[in-house]
């Protein structure tokens, strides 16, 4: 593929993501042991393939090194043992996972994280682990800000050099051994601020604020005056906001 055409494809992909709006998506390939990404199930929309995940503004894609999807930039999560074989010339931003020492952009090793993962709870959603979460957010921000480069072929090549596509086995811990936070609580703990605070203040009236917030953003973007009036009217009259949003969204074009 020529560089100008590649650039055009990237521009198109960027525009498409902007058209669709900012959504986090997860991709779980069936043939890969995605125990990390599988923890996102039920929390964020799960894409059927890398293409669909690529339509989100930010996608968490847990693929084997041999199946790297097309993107505008790459953040590669490496194990410490891969560092000596990783070629930064690939252009992707590297984050070292479970690092015992401060090595560039890294996530520190934490026994609590291991316990949460083994119990089937995503570490960002597990209660406690405050220091780990702060570091994770800081590393994620730095990684995303720097991830504007990376060539798909070069990244694939560099990843293949690190090892094969065979997934490693994970040990399981009993379910319920780690307390899980709701998405709203996790967002607050991570310092995530809603882009539209007015709509978030409405969403806080729901049982599931994150769900209602997503619906409210959709209604406010596409619905027009009558849709907003219907939602606000439901809140004023003390009726269920979730039901009102579901009804309005169903009627949207």
């Amino acid at each position: 593929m020529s560089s100008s055409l590649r650039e055009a494809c990237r521009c198109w992909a960027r525009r498409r993501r902007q058209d669709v709006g900012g959504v986090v998506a997860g991709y779980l390939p069936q043939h890969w042991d995605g125990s990390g990404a599988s923890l996102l199930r039920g929390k964020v929309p799960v894409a059927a393939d890398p293409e669909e995940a690529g339509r989100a503004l930010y996608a968490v894609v847990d693929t084997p090194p041999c199946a790297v999807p097309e993107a505008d930039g790459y953040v590669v999560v490496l194990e410490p043992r891969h560092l000596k074989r990783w070629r930064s010339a690939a252009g992707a931003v590297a984050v070292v996972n479970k690092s015992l020492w401060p090595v560039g952009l890294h996530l520190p090793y934490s026994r609590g994280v291991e316990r949460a993962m083994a119990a089937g709870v995503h570490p960002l959603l597990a209660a406690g682990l405050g220091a780990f979460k702060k570091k994770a957010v800081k590393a994620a921000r730095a990684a995303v800000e720097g991830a504007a480069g990376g060539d798909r072929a070069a990244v694939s090549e560099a990843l293949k050099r690190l090892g094969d596509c065979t997934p490693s086995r994970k040990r399981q811990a009993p379910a319920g051994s780690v307390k899980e936070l709701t998405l709203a609580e996790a967002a607050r703990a991570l310092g995530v601020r809603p882009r539209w605070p007015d709509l978030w203040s409405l969403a806080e009236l729901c049982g599931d604020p994150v769900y209602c917030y997503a619906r409210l953003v959709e209604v406010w973007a596409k619905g027009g005056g009558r849709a907003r009036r219907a939602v606000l009217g439901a809140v004023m009259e003390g009726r269920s906001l979730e039901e009102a949003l579901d009804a309005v969204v169903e009627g949207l074009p």
Partner: protein
Amino acid sequence: MSPYGRSLLLFLSSLALIAAAASAWPPLGALSAVPVLVWGEDVVLWLYTRARPVEPVRVPYGDGFQAAYDPAHRLYHWLWDAEPVQSVLGVEAAARLHELYSKLSLGPGESMAFVALGDWKLVRFTSRRYDPARVGQIEAALREFYVLARRRPWLSSPKPVAPWPYLAALAFLPMALLASGWALLGAAAWLWAVKRFRSRYREPAIPLSFSHMSKASALPASRDMLETMASAEAAAFADMERWAVAFADRPPEEVYKKFVKTYEGRDTGRRLIRIRELSEFVERMAKYNERPVLLYVYGSRDLHSLSLSRDWLAAADFWILRSGVRALSHDLARFPLLYGGRTLPVGRELVLGLDRFGRPVSIDVDALPSAHAVFIGGTGSGKSWTVATWALRLAELGVDLVVLDPHGDYRELARLVGARVVEVPAELPRGLAGLSRSKELRAVLREFGVEPVERGGEVDVERTLSQIRPFRWVDVDRRHVVYAMDSIAGDEDLLAFYLSLLLVYHYAAHAGRRHERLRTAVIVDEARLLGSGGESYALRKLASLALGGRKWGFAVWLVAQSHDDLPRRVLRSASFVLIYSGNYIYLSDAAADLRLAREDQVYLQSSTTPAEAAASSGQPYAMGVLVVGQRGLKYHVKIPLDARLKPRM
């Protein structure tokens, strides 16, 4: 000073005095509970609203038309959806608003509030008494100025207020340590005050609360100032995301006391200044019969002329109305209380464009008595483009389109909606053959001097029309049809004939079949062609269509270059009229006939054409004055035009 500021000052100064006294005699420290009991709620309210909005708890009360009852302040609130029946802004609205105020005759403990949340307008009546008969009187008075629909009560949010104000009890510790241990009673009273506050208040959602309130104690009394500022202030409010103004009668004893205090003051210099200020006040009362009122002003943005500034106290004060601004009744003209009315939502909404504040202007095609429209403007003003843009939206609402297109301007519309394009005169709809017995057909043929070919007492339509131009029948089997006549665009007589023929055909096709909901829109471009040579049969038929079409489920949209091109009764029956800019001489002449005010003419004279708008901003716009006939609502509109309809631009 506002009541909350006064409470805070009294609270702090009382505590300071008690602390000073308690250092001399410690048991006096127990008195620290007294300011908390007296002013504690105001202070907690003030403190909490430094961070977040609050509103008093409100519960539904009563049967039938329920009120929202605030048990803490013993207030009842009734709510209506309200759309103004006219469209006036600024000091022009003053007399009408004064009339509204007088007819309401608000008594002690009563107030009215006008609320705008985006383009949603509400009216709230608040009273200390639960009196359904009084509510009926208020409603009757309001109906003259607004189209009202009762609403269920506006209840408080379920979200409780946060518990952090309890921590403020720690502020009594220094007093306890330095002055007297008895001051801890104040801390206990504070905890009780916060508990009571938390039971009486809730935290509302931001889209349903106000973040700004007026800090002024009185508005300037000068009439000149009112006339200068009213339009600008009303426009500023109309531009806000949400705003509200409540008003109540100012007790006459208070006005009298102010007058006495001014007149009998000892300081001559100050007395003269006050008399001068009061004279403007008295002059307005005498000359314009204004009454003293209290205004409670809330918004979502700063407005310096009314001292509107950010304070979450607005969310609570909107319900308890303690921080009023002294004013006179014509000062209500500073707010757009009679502007921007819309039809109530009944059925399908047709979005037409944006008003001068960038808010969408729309009509409900099922609410209006008819959906007939007239578009008047010179060449190049964007009439056909506007009609095509709106026709596209009508098609999305499920309305079938019939377009009589003398110049082929609607081909792109046809492509976008999948319409059948009938190339007149080479093609004609097969249904025309069914008019063989129609007297309307004979009248049109007679008018244009076409000799009908008779067959068995009926007109042989095919042979008659073949005399004029050879053609073939086509089946119009789709929802939408465009009759393109650009092949004969140079021959106006021929155009007029075919326009009349097709109009009469569609009239016959639809008339007589009752269908209350709008189903078909018949768009006639260059309607002047129907009237060439005096009032034609087709124009008379058009007038019948316009007057009776609503019950037969269709609307007629006429596009003309001048209002003189159409019979007056067609203009009179139009549900909405869109007037574009034109030659300045034409505008001056048309102003009287079309009831254009001075500011309408100024707006039209400053309009840009779609080509200019596209060149400067990339988005083509048409600009015009839209009059919705139902209530004489008038808007200065900017209509974003669909670029797909003119790909070459």
